[in-house]
């Protein structure tokens, strides 16, 4: 069994290395007809860009993606610099008409995005010629290796039950060098994905055939991300199934997040795209879905006929009615650990790291400031966006609409949710984003704390203060602080993953939905002591 496990590990590392190595393969160049049709499709007004790009990428040289990217971004810069210089000159001459004219010649969007789009046409090499084989050597080996690594646990872990043996004795799960390596890899991955997609254009080739089958188009970096997301969740869910096979709550919950990720977040939007509809994730609720009210999305929905209007109404109803009503009955767990994609990744890929969330009082203070600030930020952004959308102005309350959208997307959408939220799993725990940043979680938290039937019931006086519940709480709740006082746990941040209940060696904790009355039950003297004393002190 151990040999199988080790073989699996080796295969996985080989697959991962080939996957990472593909970045450096292939050569990139364009023919003039390819470039001409690209530029005319883009409808650039710039008189320089075609020339500059021609000089840059119509070549017989074998450019790597990095050289290619540098050249394209340089062409972009030369063109924009030229018009910026003109703008500055007309500005100095106070020639406002001429100055205004120049703006149409500028190229907007991110240089790396332009480079990605061109590279998607320009790529040549072994990967494009052998997508099937490359798929097997990367995704295939990775999946097989990971499964070989995970499946022997069925026997190696022993009988069903909580087996956290060695969690704090191993470099991978105790913030050792392996954990730091994983962090570096994940952070690099997200930086490339969000900010330098052209560098990973080779990955998109591997998935082009699958993308074509699903949505009719070629794979973007987001398709790669979505596909990878599903694969990782599937593989790591098998790990969850084995580890928690004695616990039906965990089994059903894992199946649920898996279903919603694969069907709702991945397949349905892809299929909608293939049917010329706007691809929409029906479970992704605003304000987690922060660009739902962005002008481009509203325009796209308004121009998509009946389905667009349906999505618009659904999105609003989801946030305003379905989400809070469900939280009232079941707690925010129905969303955060049963449906949500971010939660889904945290509960599968992130499960080995759940013990790293900070349980200190200071962390709790930081959490409350930060998450509510992000909620506030997202609401202000949406207000500004909607106001400017309907009035046709550029700003509201002195806040420029484009600026606030860009800032939010960059700081919260990319850095917080992605780079930090997932990249920091191995060191800071698997729910950094959900705990400190997610505006939807903050909103659900209000409902859960003040108007809900959900609580974690503490079983009388049975707590022995061992600390397993607090340690394994991914949301950094000091569960024990409540349990050892005989008090139920009613906290806005609880996502109801149920692990505290699973790891408790004395059967003290149970997630349940019951009457609101008596849900919060502060006690001084615990159950089991003198009845008169309990009466005297607890009801004082």
């Amino acid at each position, binding site marked *: 069994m151990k040999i199988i496990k080790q073989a699996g590990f080796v295969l996985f590392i080989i697959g991962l290395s080939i996957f990472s190595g593909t970045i450096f393969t292939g050569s990139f160049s364009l023919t003039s007809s390819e470039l001409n049709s690209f530029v005319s499709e883009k409808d650039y007004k710039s008189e320089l860009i075609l020339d500059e790009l021609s000089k840059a990428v119509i070549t017989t040289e074998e450019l790597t993606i990095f050289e290619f990217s540098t050249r394209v971004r340089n062409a972009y810069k030369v063109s924009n610099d030229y018009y910026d210089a003109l703008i500055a000159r007309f500005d100095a001459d106070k020639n406002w008409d001429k100055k205004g004219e120049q703006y149409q010649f500028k190229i907007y969007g991110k240089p790396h995005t332009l480079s990605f789009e061109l590279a998607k046409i320009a790529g040549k090499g072994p990967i494009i010629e052998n997508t099937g084989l490359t798929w097997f050597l990367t995704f295939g080996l990775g999946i097989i290796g990971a499964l070989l690594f995970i499946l022997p646990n069925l026997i190696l872990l022993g009988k069903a039950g909580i087996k956290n043996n060695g*969690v704090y004795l191993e470099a991978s799960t105790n913030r050792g060098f392996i954990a730091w390596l994983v962090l570096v890899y994940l952070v690099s991955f997200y930086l490339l994905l969000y900010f330098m997609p052209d560098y990973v254009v080779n990955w998109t080739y591997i998935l082009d055939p699958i993308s074509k089958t699903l949505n009719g188009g070629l794979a973007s970096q987001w398709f790669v991300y979505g596909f990878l997301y599903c694969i990782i969740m599937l593989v790591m869910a098998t790990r969850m199934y084995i580890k928690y096979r004695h616990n039906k709550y965990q089994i059903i919950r894992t199946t649920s997040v898996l279903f919603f990720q694969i069907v709702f977040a991945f397949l349905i939007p892809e299929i909608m795209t293939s049917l010329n509809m706007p691809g929409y994730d029906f479970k992704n609720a605003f304000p987690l879905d922060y660009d739902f009210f962005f002008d481009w999305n509203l325009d796209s929905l308004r121009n998509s006929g009946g389905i667009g209007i349906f999505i618009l109404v659904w999105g609003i109803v989801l946030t305003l009615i379905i989400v809070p009503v469900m939280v009232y009955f079941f707690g925010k767990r129905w969303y955060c650990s049963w449906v949500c994609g971010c939660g889904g990744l945290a509960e599968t890929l992130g499960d080995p790291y759940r013990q790293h969330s900070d349980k200190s009082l200071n962390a709790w203070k930081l959490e409350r400031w930060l998450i509510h600030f992000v909620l506030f930020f997202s609401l202000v952004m949406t207000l500004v966006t909607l106001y400017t959308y309907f009035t046709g102005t550029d700003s509201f309350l002195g806040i420029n609409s484009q600026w606030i959208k860009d800032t939010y997307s960059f700081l919260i959408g990319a850095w917080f949710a992605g780079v930090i939220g997932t990249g920091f799993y191995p060191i800071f725990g698997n729910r950094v984003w959900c705990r400190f940043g997610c505006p939807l979680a903050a909103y659900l938290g209000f409902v859960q704390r003040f108007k809900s039937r959900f609580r974690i019931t503490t*079983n009388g006086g049975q707590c022995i203060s061992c600390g397993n519940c607090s340690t394994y709480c991914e949301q950094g709740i000091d569960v024990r602080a409540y349990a050892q006082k005989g008090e139920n746990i009613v906290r806005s941040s609880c996502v109801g993953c*149920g692990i505290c209940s699973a*790891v408790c060696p004395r059967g003290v904790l149970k997630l349940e939905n019951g*009457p609101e009355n008596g849900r919060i039950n502060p006690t001084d003297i615990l*159950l*089991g002591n003198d009845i008169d004393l309990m009466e005297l002190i607890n009801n004082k």
Partner: protein
Amino acid sequence: MEHIVIIGNGISGVTLARHIRKNSANEITIVSAESDYFFSRTALMYVYMGHLKFEHTQPYEPWFWMKNRINLKKGYVDRINTSKKQLVFSNGEHFSYDKLVFATGSKPNKFGWPGQDLDGVMGMYHKQDLENLEKHAPNNQVCKRAVIVGGGLIGIELAEMLHSRNIPVTFLVREASFWNGVLPTAESEMINRHIINNHIDLRLNTNLKEIKSDENGCVKSVIIEETGEEISCNVVGLTAGVSPNIDFLENSKTSAEPSRSIDTNNGILVNRFLETSIKDIYAIGDCAEQREAIGNRRVIEAVWYTGRMMGETLAQTICGNRIEYKPGHWFNSAKFFDIEYQTYGWVFGEKGRPAYENHFHWKHKDDAKCITIAYHKDTNLFLGINTFGIRMRHEIFDKWLTEKRAVNYVVEYLADANFDPEFYSLYEKEITTKFNQENGTSIESRKKSWKRIFTRA
């Protein structure tokens, strides 16, 4: 304002200190030689197993003590001068108190076995035991085999700990079946099988004769009393029960300074108010011995929960509301490898079982879940329940015991008491069917009702 000094920072002493602080502005000092901060003794096993780090076993962050003005003093109390109301530390320091509380806990029993003080022989009770085990049994290369002597709760925990690092374990149990002084036979036998299924070499009816030393004064092997068999091993765990940790009181008696000594037996003798024979001195937790047993309870209760309850109670007395220690219905819990155990009320094993106590026993076919309900054979009064592999609600059983329900009622409403996580399979129907068959009754299991669950006694 008085200076309350508590010796011992375990659950009893710390609970007491917290409650004194809630109710008064008295100066509080907790003295401990074991560790700087309170930790959960029951969680030591999880540190060795790698589930937790030691700091996770500490329920309060370090700032808690300063914020609540609870002074922590590290030091070993050598003797007590009750006339001058002073403690004398092993470094010679004198320390005054107005009221003194002993919460010094237990120490492992040793029965004078030859070799019992060798290197590699240890209990599993103190933080130092954990450090010692980490030294002598870091892995199965250093420790080829461990022998555990004594079949109680700590013994089986130590077996689980060593097993988690793949160290072969031989488990010597004096009794004919594991913990059968407490558990009814069928339950005890189920746990025997579970121990063996976890690859522990369980030896029932087996006593230790001696522990043999190698040339360096380390454990080399043990000899079995009954067969003379020699089992080579590197670690011996002595887990044959605990007794009150009160050796320092002997020093006080022999001290040159005259002072009245405190009445002791096996533990420090206390009355129902937890007061010792000397005014302003109290004892709580494992080290206290009741002069007269309370109900079915033992005079010395070395249990987490009772230590906590004594702390809660004594805080009232010290803060001016003199109150008797009157624990409510007995409850306890443990975990045997993967099988959780809870008990509410009284269920006796073969030994000491009253003639009036009848048992109803149900076991699941997976051999990992069972319950035993004890009831009065004449009146059908529900006396208590043991439950293995099924979690039950403390509040419900506490209520039923207070309401003096009949066994039929308990079986009928058993679903209200279930505390397993959502979606778990339920066994109330199966249990009821078996009960009906055995007793010729026709009880129908009721569905769980929130209303009943949340109505207090």
